[in-house]
């Protein structure tokens, strides 16, 4: 966020300076630049960009994992995992409460904020039971460089008993995570991944391809060949988001569904404009989103234009679930399990006891369908719109007020 703002200021300043100093030109304002660019550029561009993120082997694995059986109690999904290689942690067994250092990418979207609240409640529970003495957190505010220096600070001065890292981006953070591993302390990575398996445990839900398969198959099943889907994407370059679209785009293509994708930055003004323009050029039968932030704006754009509401996939954010119920649209809410924010601390509890943990801790990730929707809405009554239905903190001490009042530590 911060970096983006600064770039823009530079652009504004530079352009304005240029503008102020410009003196002569023969151009007329009546021929706007680049108006004659080739049409159909949008159709051609995404194909190459998603190929870059498509990995058949990972796709197949995640496709299988969608129907895999998970070890553990389904009432505690944050502790469930798919059977696989385990890390022996006997060397990490420790006496007494330990200090944990958490390098967080950011809390700049409702999903991360919900998870962050849940994590802090889990922390309180573990502090009460004497497992953890304190958790020192550094928020990188979506900046790779900040997070790298945060991790290096923890290594040199943090006096940490263990590290939790939620990486901001995959490639850039890999060396810093490796340095943390070299300290010989347990390292738990969750959410986005890094390109090393040195971590004691890497915790994540099934993944982006599974999301893409769930959503695109749902839309393809509801729509006819030749129907149009508008894909609203948050931003480019983040693996978990890119994989969602890489899978979905492929499936749309196989089913003969015309899909156009846009980057919106989750800005509702932008989303409304995109949908309004799409509806002005022709009918839109479906909306696909790579994250639910802004889903309500998308539905409102159809309402404002007086068009038939689309078949849609959003996310388990309550604003979407509520709008879905209110409008009665045909929809699916894929879930990027928010309860994963509890798991790193619980993994450390096991590690400090010397119990083995999955090397790759794959958590369940199952979408909310129309049948389950009522149940989740009821369970989360009184929660704000930015809350996530599958946050998984119902048994923690602060429930429900801490989440209702969005007490962000």
């Amino acid at each position, binding site marked *: 966020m911060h970096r983006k703002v600064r770039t823009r200021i530079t652009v504004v300043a530079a352009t304005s300076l240029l*503008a*102020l100093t*410009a003196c002569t030109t023969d151009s007329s304002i009546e021929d706007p630049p680049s108006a004659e660019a080739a049409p159909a550029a*949008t159709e051609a561009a995404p194909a190459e960009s998603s190929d870059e993120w498509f990995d058949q082997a990972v796709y197949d694995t995640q496709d299988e994992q969608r129907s895999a059986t998970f070890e553990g109690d389904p009432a505690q999904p944050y502790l469930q995992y798919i059977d696989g290689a385990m890390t022996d942690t006997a060397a990490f067994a420790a006496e007494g409460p330990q200090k944990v250092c958490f390098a967080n990418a950011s809390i700049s979207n409702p999903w991360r904020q919900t998870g962050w609240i849940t994590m802090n409640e889990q922390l309180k529970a573990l502090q009460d039971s004497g497992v953890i003495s304190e958790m020192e957190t550094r928020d990188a505010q979506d900046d790779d460089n900040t997070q790298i220096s945060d991790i290096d600070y923890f290594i040199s001065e943090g006096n940490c008993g263990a590290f939790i890292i939620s990486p901001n981006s995959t490639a850039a953070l890999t060396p810093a995570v490796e340095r943390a591993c070299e300290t010989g302390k347990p390292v738990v990575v969750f959410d986005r991944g890094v390109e090393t398996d040195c971590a004691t445990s890497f915790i994540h839900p099934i993944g982006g391809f599974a999301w893409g398969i769930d959503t695109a198959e749902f839309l393809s099943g509801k729509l006819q060949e030749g129907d149009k889907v508008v894909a609203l994407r948050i931003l480019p370059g983040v693996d978990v988001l890119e994989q969602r679209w890489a899978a979905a785009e492929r499936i749309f293509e196989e089913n003969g569904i015309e899909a156009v994708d846009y980057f919106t930055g989750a800005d509702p003004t932008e989303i*409304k404009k995109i949908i309004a323009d799409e509806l002005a050029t022709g009918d839109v039968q479906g909306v696909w989103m790579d994250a639910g932030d802004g889903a309500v704006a998308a539905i409102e754009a159809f309402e404002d234009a007086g068009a038939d509401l689309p078949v849609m996939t959003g996310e388990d954010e309550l604003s979407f679930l509520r709008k879905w119920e209110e409008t009665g649209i045909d929809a699916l809410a894929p879930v990027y399990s928010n309860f994963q924010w509890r798991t790193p601390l619980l993994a450390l509890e096991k590690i400090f006891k010397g119990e083995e943990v999955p090397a790759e801790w794959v958590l369940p990730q199952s979408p909310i369908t129309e049948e389950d929707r009522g149940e989740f809405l009821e369970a989360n009554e009184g929660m704000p719109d930015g809350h996530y239905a599958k946050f998984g903190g119902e048994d923690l001490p602060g429930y429900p007020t801490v989440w209702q009042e969005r007490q962000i530590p």
Partner: protein
Amino acid sequence: MSAGQTNRAASGSTRQVLLAQNRSSRGERLLRFIRTPGGAVFVLLLALLAAVIAANPSFGEPGSLIRFIGRTAPIAIAAIGQYFVIASGEFDLSMGSVVTAQVIIAGNLIGQDESRAVPVLLLMLVFGAFVGFVNGCVTTLLKVPSFIVTLGTMLALLGLVMYWTGGAATGNPADSFRQIGRGGIRDVPLVEVLPYPLLILVGIAATAFWLMRRPFGRALLAAGDNPRAAALAGTPVWWIKTRAFMLSSLAATVAGIILVGYAGVHPSVGRGYEFTAITAVVLGGVVLGGGRGWVLSAAAGAFSLELLFTLLNFLGVESTWRDTVQGLIIIVAVAVAAQTWQRKRRGAPPPTLKIPPTPPGTTA
């Protein structure tokens, strides 16, 4: 013959020409207006509209056209606000952040409680005026360049928003409040619905037009053209400019109120508004550095800009090109405007003045 006499003679003949111009027929005056940058933008607007409709005929239906105007209204309102500041010779870069801050204020303070709508609305207006007042006072009394002052305000407000929200969306305010930006008068013949933002825009444009014809408007242009001369002539320049900043922030506030209805609460709402507003104003032929330009041309600039983006979108040009286009527009428009106005400033009669007041054939 001394130089002074020559000048007097020259100015005498110029006066005659101007007099003749003012007495010329409506048609001629319109023609002359179109040739200024502030008039050409209306031609551009019509040309772009024709191009968009040619690219996509359904856009020309009254229903979709009126919705387009409704959704562009906040940008036009911001452009009108920015016009006051630019015409007075300053910049307001804090506009986008004011929009964002107001959107967040509305979302957080009103919530689902409809009874709070009116008090919070008043609070937002007071807050908007206050931001403008601070911008204006620091610029004029402390003599800090407005570019820097409003840059500071922009960052300060953004920081505040980030602190308050953590950068994530919060819940939308009550639906009744959102109707200001989303709703409209239903069952209007021909256009189905008359969006409220459109009505607000018309009201603000009319007020701005009226203001510019009042002594305030005259003093504003004088202060922008030559602040020293204006001060010597008895104009309280600091107060004139401060009021321009307040009008700008108030316009941003109104844009924010509309946007929270139209789009909803998100920290990215309002992002880049200052840049879009400045582009629109410049496209409307208003001179950066102040002193010249017509307020309604600024609004027309906003519509032209949005039409251009719509056209690019319909032609399949990727939206990533938008910033480039916007940057080029600023440079081209400023260059064209500078050329035209400079000719006047240097004293050489611009081409329009060469039109003879008497029947063609005789020379002036």
